[in-house]
């Protein structure tokens, strides 16, 4: 994932991974993943904030009786 992200950010390429599930009446149902600059940078921001908030939550919720249910 890191390597792919590095390639996409360095080379302005868009990588598309397509897994075809089935085809019905000429309509193809597929799972498609896109790796481009928008998705990679947005994923970095989201993961960074989620990680920081998780660290904050472990301290913030430590006295809560249901903390195990939270994390």
């Amino acid at each position, binding site marked *: 994932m890191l390597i792919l992200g590095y390639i996409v950010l360095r080379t302005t390429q868009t990588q*598309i*991974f*397509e897994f075809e599930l089935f085809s019905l009446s*000429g*309509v*193809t*149902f*597929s*799972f*498609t*993943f*896109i*790796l481009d600059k*928008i*998705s990679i*940078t*947005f*994923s970095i*921001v*989201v*993961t960074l*904030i*989620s990680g*920081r*908030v*998780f660290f*904050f*939550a472990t301290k*913030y*919720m430590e006295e*809560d009786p*249901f903390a195990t*249910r*939270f994390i």
Partner: protein
Amino acid sequence: MNFLIFSGSIFLLLVGWDGLGITSFALIIYYESGEAQMAGFQTQIINRVGDVIIVLSFFLLCCRGQFTVFRLRDKVFYNSGVVLLLSLAALTKRAQFPFRSWLPAAMAAPTPVSALVHSSTLVTAGIFILIRLRHRTPLCPTTSRLLLLCGSVTCLLGGWAATFENDIKKVIALSTLRQLGVIVFSLGINFPALGLFHLYTHALFKALLFLAAGHILIITWGSQDLRQIGGVGLRIPFTSLMFTVRRLCLVAAPFTRAFYSKHLILELMLSVPVNMVRFLIMGAATFITGKYVFRTLKSVV
């Protein structure tokens, strides 16, 4: 959330979308109080409205014979209703004007949840879809008009409600509404790259603002009323400093992060043909933002 970000087909989009809806519902009702349950159900119902609209767009896509999102930028889809329907679905997720009620209600959740939901995950999902859809091609005029209207009205309502709100978390939530309005407005005036830039800056400073608010709540033993938390600046100077800097960021004070994104959007608003009413609404919302931000600062510092 990452599932939604990397999704290229409408199926994966719906999986990520529903995953966000379900986890946010579970997190909002964590405290199991009546208020939290009401807020959770409100969020859930509005998110289900968004799901219904996405499923409706399935039928239009079936007529075209493919479900990949990136081909929606093609000219074939320029005037079709798919982009309009997906924009409407995004309106529900990012709490714009007709569907804005769930965002302040979701404050019943614990503070870390608010930080996550309001800064980077739930509300930005809708905007991310729109930016993904219209990365290169402009939107059709109907969708642009819808976005401009919803963005400007949400800005004004969010700012107006925050001026009279005394709950510190709700003030921050309503300021989120106001910033989302700005991002939607930038999409409406055909500057998606600026919208994405403001989305990043907003996600980072709003997360820090919520975490600082969480620390303030610990110090004041859970009191969220702005009138009762005066003087915390002396007890927790570093958190108070961070809070102050981020509040200044919210009004785009010079040399803060939001200065470079928000000012650019507001400046470009002058250079594109925008309806005068929407222009005036945005101007009024900008003045109101200054008012409520300095009111909060006066209470905290």
